[in-house]
């Protein structure tokens, strides 16, 4: 259940930015989560709602931007899409495919007032 820690980390980032940016309420949060980031989206939404209660982001909408897993095949050297970390290369069956993308966990943008 590390989504709870991650949600707390999100709230801290939002808080820090609110202080520096001079806004008092956050209405929407766009969160980028890679397919290989090890984050359960539904758990993340649940935890975000729980930790933002009584905060400037209470009731904020959490929009998930899902980025696909991506890797480089050691055999055919192609950049391929990866659904799971240990999947073989969909083009030639080679493995292990080196993960090059889809591990992001990043707040991209906020709608504030």
């Amino acid at each position: 259940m590390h989504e709870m820690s991650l949600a707390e980390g999100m709230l801290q980032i939002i808080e820090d930015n609110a202080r520096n940016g001079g806004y008092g309420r956050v209405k929407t949060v766009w969160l980028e989560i890679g397919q290989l980031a090890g984050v359960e989206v539904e758990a993340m939404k649940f935890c975000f709602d729980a930790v933002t209660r009584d905060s400037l982001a209470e009731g904020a909408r959490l929009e998930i931007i899902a980025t696909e897993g991506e890797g480089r095949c050691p055999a055919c050297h192609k950049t391929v899409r990866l659904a799971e970390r240990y999947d073989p290369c969909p083009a030639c069956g080679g493995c292990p495919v080196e993960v090059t993308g889809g591990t992001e966990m990043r707040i991209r943008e906020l709608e504030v007032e």
Partner: protein
Amino acid sequence: MCTVCGCGEGEVKIEGNAHHHGHGGHQHAHNPPHEHAHVQYRATGNGLHFGLGAAHAHAPGLSQSRMVQIEQDILGKNNAYAAQNRALLAARGIFAINLVSSPGSGKTTLLIRTIEGLQGKIPLAVIEGDQQTSFDAERIRATGVPAIQINTGKGCHLDAHMVGHALEKLNLVDHGLLFIENVGNLVCPASFDLGEAHKVVILSVTEGEDKPLKYPDMFAAADLMLLNKVDLLPYISFDVQKCIAYAQRVNSRIRVILTSATSGEGMDEWLEWLLARK
């Protein structure tokens, strides 16, 4: 995390005192935004409370919605603490290993055998992470090695901030070896850098050979897998080669050593691995 710092996880205890300490003894080096947080909000029994400063200020004319691009990694804060820990350890020539595994893989017993093999050769210290009890730290201290227990309360992993506080309290000797025994959990500790040189995953043969595929993140994050309790192999159905192949499918660089804290098998190779990287 620490309530003084406003980090939200109020149940963490670092042995010796609950982590609700006064600011007088709070010597952890915080970066500026983090110190700022001390003033701006605090954790109480009911959660985080804001409204002590700018966050709640209502500026006329600023009530229209607008978009703010922030592009910040949500593990950024943990990673900043990990970088602080890493710098502190590097400055003192201390080599840190983060031991991760499921509960019951034999981590603590293996660690005690490791300590017995290294004692007298190199200064040692241990940070123990568990949700509750200081049983493990007591077991380590019985060997004569300094150890400190972190209880995470409901937390499922150690984070770099907790480890930073533990480093302040632990009697570290320069140019030594520090073992951080993480909370028994094959999922969450994979995401949290503590400032260690290497993550070492321990998998016992009683857990089944398919674990590297079932919990790939942990095996992807580790540099070494200790396949433990191999003295039990004659009594159970466990395919060693399949397990190693699965681990390497997830992480082509992972090294594997077969160990048994009971028979001593593989211990020399494991100690050599440690000393060669120190």
